């Protein structure tokens, strides 16, 4: 699988304050331990990726963080410097919604902020803010489009704009680039990286795509119902760990190719070599 992201990820900062701490988090659904005593931390200001095979409990861990799944143990989300509760922005994996709903992208953006019912139209300042946020994710042209008519990549960018509209301290994403084509994923990753650097939020992302993780994550949590490994990508994404978590892994991550503090994948887009 080709890598879709630029190579400018930073290494994990071990001394960073913790934005989210999972302490012995256990989720039992239908008698099955979906999560079993998960203890992990998300460094503040970093880009943390949760990786693991299907059924590892990645999405469940995010839903537990969002208060959507009952769990045992504790999930501590640190307050902000000014003592208020941190704001969360959420980008779901694939928004399950009724595509027949006649809602424009602009209305979708505005409905969370504007109290005046949309049947009286959009307030000027709300519409301007929506347009600015969409411009930040290169989706300004989608403003008047119907939400149900967007492609997968376009919808993910709009969802990112919606999450950014929360001015989040913590951006939670569940496989945000799943089902998006190569170019769409590249654009999404670039926007995300730029936004994180500009706004300084903490990013927590579930991903299947190890190439994305190696490029973007500063901290990795390898999950398979329990935490198999946690730390900077170059220390965690080892052949041993990946084999332990995924079984036979795809060999995308070449640890020897990772320079100090940087991560790099072995795909042709990064090595400059043509595909074999």
């Amino acid at each position, binding site marked *: 699988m080709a890598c879709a992201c630029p190579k400018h990820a930073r290494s994990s900062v071990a001394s960073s304050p913790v934005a989210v701490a999972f302490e012995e988090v256990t989720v039992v659904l*239908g008698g099955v331990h979906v999560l079993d005593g998960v203890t992990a931390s998300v460094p503040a200001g970093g880009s943390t990726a949760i990786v693991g095979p299907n059924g590892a409990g990645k999405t469940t861990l995010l*839903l537990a963080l*969002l*208060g*959507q799944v009952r769990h045992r143990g504790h999930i501590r989300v640190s307050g902000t410097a000014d003592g208020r509760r941190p*704001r*969360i*922005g*959420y980008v*779901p994996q694939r*928004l*399950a*919604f*009724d595509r*027949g*709903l*006649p*809602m*424009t992208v602009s*209305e*979708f953006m*505005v*409905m*969370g902020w*504007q*109290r*005046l*019912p*949309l*049947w*009286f*139209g*959009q307030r000027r300042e709300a519409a301007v803010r929506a347009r600015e946020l969409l411009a930040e994710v290169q989706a300004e042209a989608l403003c008047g489009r*119907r939400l149900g008519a967007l492609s997968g990549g376009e919808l993910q960018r709009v*969802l990112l704009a*919606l*999450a950014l509209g*929360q001015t989040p301290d913590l951006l*939670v994403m569940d496989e945000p680039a799943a089902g998006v084509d190569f170019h769409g994923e590249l654009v999404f990753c670039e926007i995300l990286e730029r936004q994180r650097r500009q706004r300084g939020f903490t990013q927590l992302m579930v991903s299947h795509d190890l190439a994305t993780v190696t490029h973007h994550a500063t901290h990795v949590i390898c999950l398979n119902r329990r935490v198999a490994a946690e730390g900077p990508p170059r220390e965690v994404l080892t052949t041993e760990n990946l084999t332990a978590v995924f079984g036979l892994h795809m060999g995308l991550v070449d640890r020897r190719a990772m320079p100090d503090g940087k991560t790099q994948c072995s795909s042709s887009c990064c090595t400059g070599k043509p595909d074999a």
Partner: protein
Amino acid sequence: MPDLTPLYSLVPKALPFECLEARFMQRALVGLLLLAPMSAAMGVQVVNFRMAFFADAISHSAFAGVALGLLLSLDPHWTMPAFALLVGLTIMAAQRRSALSSDTVIGVFFSAVVAFGIAVVSRDRNVARDMQRFLYGDILTVSDRDILCLALLFLVLMVFESWSYNRLLYIGLNPILAEAHQVRVGPYQYLYAGLLSLVVIFSVWAVGVLLVTALLILPAATARNLARSAGSMFWWALLTSVVSALCGLLLSAQDWAGTATGASIILVAFVGFALSAGVAVLRGQRAA
């Protein structure tokens, strides 16, 4: 109780039809003009939330509401909405807590309230005969007290819709996303379920148990075909609902028609839907 005569006397002035000179027709028209916008506004969200089955369950609780009134020697006009409210809130609580699918939860309550109603009503043949008016509805027998109750509900509901329309759209789109973005999903869902239960049970008087869901769904479905935005969807639903109610009432009063008012309203609403579906197809063809 306030005298509503001045209000009724406006009807023949605004709509100079011969059939609207009778007081019961004026009362029915005022009742429908209050009910139609409510069912349109709630119907938009019923379609968004996929709650048609929920509305069906509430409408069928009408029998049990009447039966409860008989058992407790209370006026069914009070026991029906009270019981519908109880059933609506209980279903919502069960849906939010249960691991069962939404349809299964509603189905369980649906069957329980219908069985309870039939069991009690079937003990008295006279009452069982009287139940027909709930099956088919009878807006022509609406009283001044009903009109006042509808007016009060109309006020409460429009305040709620004005305050919550955008948030309800958010929740209808994806409740997890809405909750993550600081929308208090639970209170909105309970308030909506309670008000919907009341609108449904009042609509039972107008169009009957069998057609109440259609009164909610048809204007909203028509609006979806015609609207280009979530805001305009509300106005289209409102327009469709009010026009259907007016035309249905006037048609049913014609000698050559002589049909039940509720059924006439729904048939007119269906014609509106069919036309809107045609418009949607034409638009789609143009887009292609």
